[in-house]
């Protein structure tokens, strides 16, 4: 295990953020139009109250157990471990959740909050469509109208999820501005929110956006890490050596990492390297970007000299975002978490490896995490342990994969 490379003095705790202004060091904050400020402050108060309410916690746990199907298993991937010939690999199987990814953990939390706040209309942005599906699902469950903004490009490459959302009763609005991907969808959702401040609750799908979203989404997703910690103690009687998760905005990663941040565990976040970091066609905001301000927070962004945001590229629509949650930016600068990247073709190879060795078709997003696991596991001792977040299943991706492999289906 390589220890994290600390760029600053180690902190007493890495779990204390954000501060009362919503900042993680210089990152995070509330960079929104004045129209939204009162709403965001209101949301913060409502979330603070909900977090401390036993009723809210009870409802959240109830639906997590009986609707989502939590806890998700922590599965020892023995065939994969054997074939890679190094560290023991465990999958945290959030792909088994209802709707097929970790996104439902967050949408359940936020819709319960929306109900508490008396909101009557839900909006969301989506990239791969997983968050859109998870939002449409809870809106159906709680009988609230749902509008999902989705880039026109993504609508094309994630057609099954678009249809799923429609079946669930959501209105899917194609976004053609910019390049029609996740960042544009988020702009459009923010525009909707500014125009519908009275009744609308915006369910953001990752640990980004203005405070309190990054902290709130992290808290809802942290169920992943809390379970994993207990499960690995039970299975192995000790903490893992390394955690690995993929990063789009960073919610599945933060959910797994956060409960372990103050433990002696190596932590690796895997960004989408697209066609390679030497090209401009990637989505690795931490390894290939600079601090900037977008979508309500300060974080690492892909941008040009003039501060114009550059479109991200990844084979995985869910990782195709030019920013990253502010807490990741902060953990990066403190050297607590290592951030690496994996290319489209490495992810595609890992995708196939997972299908063949474990009989699990992973989403292309966690296939990025797996590609990195495949790089480091063979270098590690056989008694070392990796826990990887298998945060989504790959049904939605089979068309993309077939296309890249040149197969007609």
């Amino acid at each position, binding site marked *: 295990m390589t220890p994290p490379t600390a760029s600053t003095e180690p902190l007493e705790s890495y779990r204390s953020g954000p501060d009362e202004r919503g900042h993680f060091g210089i990152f995070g904050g509330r*960079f929104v139009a004045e129209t939204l400020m009162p709403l965001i402050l209101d949301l913060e108060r409502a979330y603070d109250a909900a977090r401390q309410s036993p009723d809210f916690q009870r409802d959240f746990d109830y639906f997590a157990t009986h609707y989502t199907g939590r806890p998700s298993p922590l599965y020892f991937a023995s065939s994969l471990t054997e074939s890679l010939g190094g560290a023991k690999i465990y999958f945290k199987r959030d792909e088994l959740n209802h709707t097929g990814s970790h996104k439902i953990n967050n949408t359940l939390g936020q819709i319960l909050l929306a109900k508490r706040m008396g909101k009557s209309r839900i909006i969301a942005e989506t990239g791969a469509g997983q968050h859109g599906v998870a939002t449409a699902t809870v809106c159906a469950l709680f009988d609230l109208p749902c509008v999902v903004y989705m880039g026109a490009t993504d609508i094309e490459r994630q057609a099954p999820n678009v249809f799923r959302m429609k079946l669930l009763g959501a209105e899917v609005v194609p976004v053609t501005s910019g390049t029609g991907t996740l960042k544009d969808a988020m702009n459009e959702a*923010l525009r909707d929110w*500014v125009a519908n*401040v009275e009744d609308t609750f915006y369910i953001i799908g990752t640990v980004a956006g203005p405070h309190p979203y990054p902290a709130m989404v992290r808290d809802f997703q942290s169920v992943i890490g809390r379970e994993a910690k207990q499960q690995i103690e039970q299975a192995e009687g000790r903490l893992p050596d390394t955690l690995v998760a993929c990063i789009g905005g960073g919610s599945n990663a933060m959910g797994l990492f956060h409960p372990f941040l103050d433990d002696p565990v190596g932590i690796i976040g895997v960004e989408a390297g697209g066609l390679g970091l030497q090209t401009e066609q990637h989505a690795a905001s931490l390894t290939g970007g600079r601090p900037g*301000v977008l979508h309500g927070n300060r974080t690492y962004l892909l941008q040009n000299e003039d501060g*114009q945001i550059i479109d991200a590229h990844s084979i995985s629509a869910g990782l195709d975002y030019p920013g990253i949650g502010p807490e990741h930016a902060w953990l990066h600068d403190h050297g607590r978490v290592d951030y690496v990247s994996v290319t489209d073709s490495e992810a595609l190879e890992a995708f196939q490896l997972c299908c063949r060795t474990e009989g699990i078709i992973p989403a292309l997003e966690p296939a990025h995490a797996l590609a990195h696991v495949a790089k480091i596991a063979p270098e590690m001792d056989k008694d070392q342990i990796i826990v990887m977040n298998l945060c989504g299943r790959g049904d939605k991706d089979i068309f993309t994969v077939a296309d890249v492999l040149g197969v007609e289906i």
Partner: protein
Amino acid sequence: MSRGDRVDLAFKRLSDEGRAGLVTFITAGDPDLETSQNLMEGLADSGADIIELGMPFSDPMADGPAIQAANLRALANGASLRRTLDMVARFRRSNDQTPVILMGYFNPIYQYGPTRFVTDAVESGVDGLILVDLPPEEDDELCDPARTAGLHWVRLVTPTSDEKRLKSVLKNASGFVYYVSIAGITGTRSASVSAVGDAVARLRSHTGLPIAVGFGINTPEQVHDTVEVADGAVVGSAIIREIEKNLDETGAARPELLENVSSLVRTLAEGARN
């Protein structure tokens, strides 16, 4: 006199003339740098009392389709923050009177460096700044150097700004206050005359600064109704749409673009005068 006083002088002149002002918005570099420069000069000549110049940004999240498209056209044709400042400097060679307020989003300024930016902005002849995504909670790093350098810090007040927020919003405001008349993005809905009247009256009890009203003001009649209650009416999307109408299939400016925009601005200016 400090540089920022172009704004104070403009409002003083307006009040001496017993009328309110027309504030016009265009995006710097839209549809191209050269046309935009000429447009800026034309605005002043056609009766704009104050010019708001948009600093192009790839992700203008508080703007509607018209201004979004203007931003993208400008960027596609080589606009940048540095070139926006150059545009103002060139404008100042022939016009030392019309206040120029830069309006936009923080990231380009953050990359430029806030301190260097305010220095260069003052040197170029900029009079004030409006930053859409810097609420009072986040604006020290630009507001403080800007005010020190003598730039006006124009704050946005919205229909959602309650009494408590008004205090913090108005705290560092200078030059004038920009009342965003609808909860929404640019170029969409318009507020009712009475709602604007009530809001401006409420604002006046909190500030002695002049109040300009914007969002959803498209016609000379709407300008007229607005200046009945406010000190200035801001027109943006309507001008941008006129620019858009005068582009050919390749997106290039037609020869009549300048004249058509000028004549629109003249009619808007008349709305502000009677």
